[in-house]
């Protein structure tokens, strides 16, 4: 039987226009009454400059909230009617599912100072999963490293080779380390494209914490093969493997509310969807031709190299005439979330600067209007924080002015007279509408589960599901003002041209909140909260009561942040089945295998604390095999000019005689990058009498010594 499939190439542009008009119309329907009510409230007490600014801020902020709610509502109605016919997955004919694909595909994972065992084990489970499908025979995996930490670098090399040997995947899993990490992740991927894009038709881009099942990768390739006008398909990754309270809150919330919202997002995006930087497939030929990132004119926070590359690459792809789709129904697509508030803020700091930089691109020529909207929404997702803060400050000022008699007393407008609305009840209604709008996505997502007992059971049943929603709502309400202050500070720092460092996300036990770090990060938030509480209470105790959720969030930021970063409490909640997700209740084979492999890694011996700081260097110099692998992976240089060789010889001598701490990090890195030096160091170290080696090396050599230490008895003294 021939199945009717969706053809994105034949999509009527008027259908896209109709859907976008409906979506924006719904946003207006949700937002305008509230905005008019707010305007009316201000008019009743005398309109002035403060209130004009207040209304303007309210309009922007409420508009954003309404957009989210409208999207979820649309997603809900689409799901209730069945499935959206205009979705990229509907383009596949199920009859073709068994066909083996011959399109050469590169599965690439750009990394930079990441947790290496997690990266390697993630690659392992994806490779094994893809192998099990037996359908994608022409795929290779790439580990694209920009790591600058020597320990991580050496560990990556050794673990990569061990992995290829264990899987028998020589020539199928590759490793490439850039000497200089120009242009961060975008530059890393561009480097891959310049070297090897001609070998492959598609590139599946992963993050260091991504897991995609083989079936999921095969489905993406199949979709690309079916739709030759599509340049990028973005999957919707589920957050998984969360252990701390915050990580589990995020994965619970995204799993519960995400699917409905994603359907609503696809409803208006269609072929002008966005690219989120990972868990996506890209058609390489047009990507190479059209998506190399240009530098923005000027320097500083809005110029220079583009930091957040994904939105721009999607816009460039669309500008070149290729469609970009969001695959909302693709399963087996996972990533991990930050484990604590400080890490979450750190990630936002990086994304924020990148998104702010897009301001220039809104006005660049040739981009599709929807891509411009993506830029605007990306900017507003962070700019909303200072706007919210300004809104609160202006609200306080208005409350103060009303308290001190500025403006007139409340009067009735015809509308409120008709509705029998007192000033207080009108304000209460507006508050209720705002709260309703904020909670609408949650309510709609819960309603969406009615009549789906299996899905409800996978969340632990209604009782635990609702308890999870309550916990998530309380904690995210308390965290929202903290993130508001974080984002506002970051925007100020960005405008002051302070550089952003790109650190790796901490995971597992390492991802727990650290007391001093938490106090340092949130001390200022607590002080701001206390100051604001005193101020608003003195202005009007009733106003302070209205502001209490925000003030409580700030005042309690240290304990709340510490609590949400707790591994023990997170695991205790998991044991009780709270904040459970379907992926946690019944993990995919790949996720279970990943957990099993990481548990084995966890049992491995750790280096002595004295050696841990330079353990990568230790292994690269001492271990015959790791040294051999490292030397072989370094680029062979022609004979160095004599002064350079003399410099390297002096560095080698210093390293052996005085230990690694006698060299600067730059000097250690220079030695690690010099193949000749590394080969010579190995021989020289082993051939040096013990008394001519630094104490650090003597301790290192004990790793390989057969003898146990002499028994400690009275005669040993």
């Amino acid at each position, binding site marked *: 039987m021939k199945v009717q499939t969706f053809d994105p190439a034949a999509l009527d542009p008027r259908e896209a226009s109709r859907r976008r008009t409906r979506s924006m119309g719904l946003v207006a329907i949700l937002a305008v009454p509230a905005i008019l009510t707010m305007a009316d409230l201000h008019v009743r007490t005398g309109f002035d400059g403060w209130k004009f600014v207040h209304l303007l801020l309210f309009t922007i902020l409420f508009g954003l909230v309404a957009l989210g709610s409208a999207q979820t509502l649309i997603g809900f109605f689409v799901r209730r009617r069945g499935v959206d016919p205009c979705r990229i997955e509907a383009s596949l004919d199920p009859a073709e599912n068994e066909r083996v694909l011959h399109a050469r595909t590169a599965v690439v994972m750009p990394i930079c100072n990441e947790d290496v065992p997690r990266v390697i084990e993630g690659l392992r489970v994806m490779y094994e999963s893809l192998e099990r499908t037996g359908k994608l025979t022409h795929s290779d995996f790439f580990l694209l490293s920009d790591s600058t930490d020597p320990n991580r670098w050496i560990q990556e090399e050794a673990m990569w080779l061990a992995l290829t040997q264990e899987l028998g995947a020589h020539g199928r899993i590759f490793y490439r380390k850039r000497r200089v990490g120009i242009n961060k992740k975008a530059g890393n991927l561009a480097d891959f494209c310049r070297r090897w894009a001609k070998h492959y038709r598609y590139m599946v881009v992963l993050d260091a914490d991504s897991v995609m099942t083989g079936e999921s990768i095969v489905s993406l390739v199949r979709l690309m093969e079916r739709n030759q006008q599509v340049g990028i398909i973005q999957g919707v990754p589920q957050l998984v493997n969360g252990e701390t309270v915050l990580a589990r809150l995020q994965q619970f919330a995204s799993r519960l509310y995400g699917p409905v919202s994603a359907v609503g997002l696809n409803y208006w995006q269609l072929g002008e969807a966005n690219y989120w930087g990972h868990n996506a497939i890209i058609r390489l030929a047009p990507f190479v031709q059209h998506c190399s990132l240009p530098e923005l004119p000027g320097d500083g926070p809005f110029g220079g190299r583009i930091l957040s590359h994904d939105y721009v690459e999607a816009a460039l792809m669309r500008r070149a005439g290729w469609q970009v789709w969001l695959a909302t129904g693709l399963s087996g697509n996972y990533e991990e979330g930050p484990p604590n508030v400080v890490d979450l803020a750190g990630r936002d700091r990086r994304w924020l600067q990148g998104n702010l930089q897009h301001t220039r691109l809104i006005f660049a020529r040739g981009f599709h209007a929807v891509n411009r909207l993506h830029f605007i929404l990306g900017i507003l997702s962070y700019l909303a924080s200072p706007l919210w803060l300004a809104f609160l400050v202006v609200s306080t000022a208005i409350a103060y002015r009303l308290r001190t008699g500025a403006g007139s007393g409340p*009067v009735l407008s015809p509308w409120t007279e008709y509705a029998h609305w007192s000033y207080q009840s009108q304000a209460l209604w507006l508050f209720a509408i705002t709260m309703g709008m904020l909670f609408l996505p949650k309510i709609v997502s819960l309603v969406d589960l009615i009549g789906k007992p299996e899905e409800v059971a996978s969340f632990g049943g209604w009782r635990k599901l609702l308890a999870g929603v309550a916990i998530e709502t309380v904690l995210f309400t308390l965290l929202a003002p903290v993130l508001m202050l974080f984002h506002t500070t970051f925007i100020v720092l960005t405008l002051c041209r302070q550089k952003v460092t790109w650190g790796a996300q901490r995971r597992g036990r390492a991802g727990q909140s650290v007391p001093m770090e938490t106090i340092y990060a949130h001390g200022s938030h607590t002080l701001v909260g206390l100051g604001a509480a005193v101020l608003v209470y003195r202005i009007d105790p009733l106003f302070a009561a209205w502001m209490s959720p925000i003030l409580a969030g700030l005042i309690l930021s240290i304990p709340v942040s510490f609590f949400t970063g707790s591994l023990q409490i997170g695991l205790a909640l998991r044991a009780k089945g709270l904040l459970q997700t379907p992926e946690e209740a019944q993990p995919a084979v790949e996720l279970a295998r990943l957990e099993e492999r990481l548990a084995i890694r966890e049992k491995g011996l750790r280096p002595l604390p004295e050696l841990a700081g330079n353990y990568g260097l230790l292994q690269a110099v001492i271990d015959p095999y790791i040294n051999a692998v490292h030397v072989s992976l370094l680029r062979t240089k022609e004979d160095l000019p004599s002064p350079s060789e003399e410099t390297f010889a002096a560095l080698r001598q210093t390293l052996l005689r005085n230990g690694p701490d006698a060299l600067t990090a730059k000097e250690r890195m220079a030695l690690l990058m010099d193949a000749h030096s590394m080969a010579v160091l190995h021989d020289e170290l082993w051939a040096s009498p013990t008394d001519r080696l630094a104490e650090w090396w003597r301790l290192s050599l004990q790793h390989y010594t057969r003898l146990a230490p002499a028994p400690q008895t009275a005669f040993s003294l």
Partner: protein
Amino acid sequence: MDATVSSSQIPSVFTRPSVSPVDPVWDDAFSRVESYLRAHRVESRELLNRLAADIIREARLAAHDAATPADPVALAMRVTHERIGAWFAHAWNKGTWAHERDRAQGRLALVMADLPGRWSNHFLSTEAIPSELVTGMAGFSLQAGPELRFSNMPPAPLEFGPDETDPHRQDKSRWVLARAALSWVMIVGLVSAATAASLWSLR
């Protein structure tokens, strides 16, 4: 009582192998050789001991014959490398062991043939080497990436402001402007109407 013992008084069982008191520098050399072999993942105590003792014996002979005194550790490691080089020549029949880079290449061959995991007890063995190990070493290649096939990836041009070269620009921009103006008129009209209604009520 005389505390010294003449050699004639020592039981013959102790005199057969020539054992001299331990020289700390050769002890250090022994330990280093043993550690180096262990770093190659040779874990058999018997094999380690045998190999290390044999290497040290040869190094001591070399030291005895040398015109100038050499450091025992350096000498023992030189003998170790010679021994590994000879074994390689026997097993691999390829390459040379003379330079650091060559030795690194040889060690890589050992890794690729999985000597550390499967064949460590055959390391430096004078007996026949398993053919699987020989094949693994002979056929090894460390492929960190596919063959390079460079692509030109020029930065996508970004232009700001109106496109002067677009012949339909005037028509398009007029239509876009008209739509934008109409939208704004509607929005401002709605807000104005609400504001006016409220103001009217204040009269």
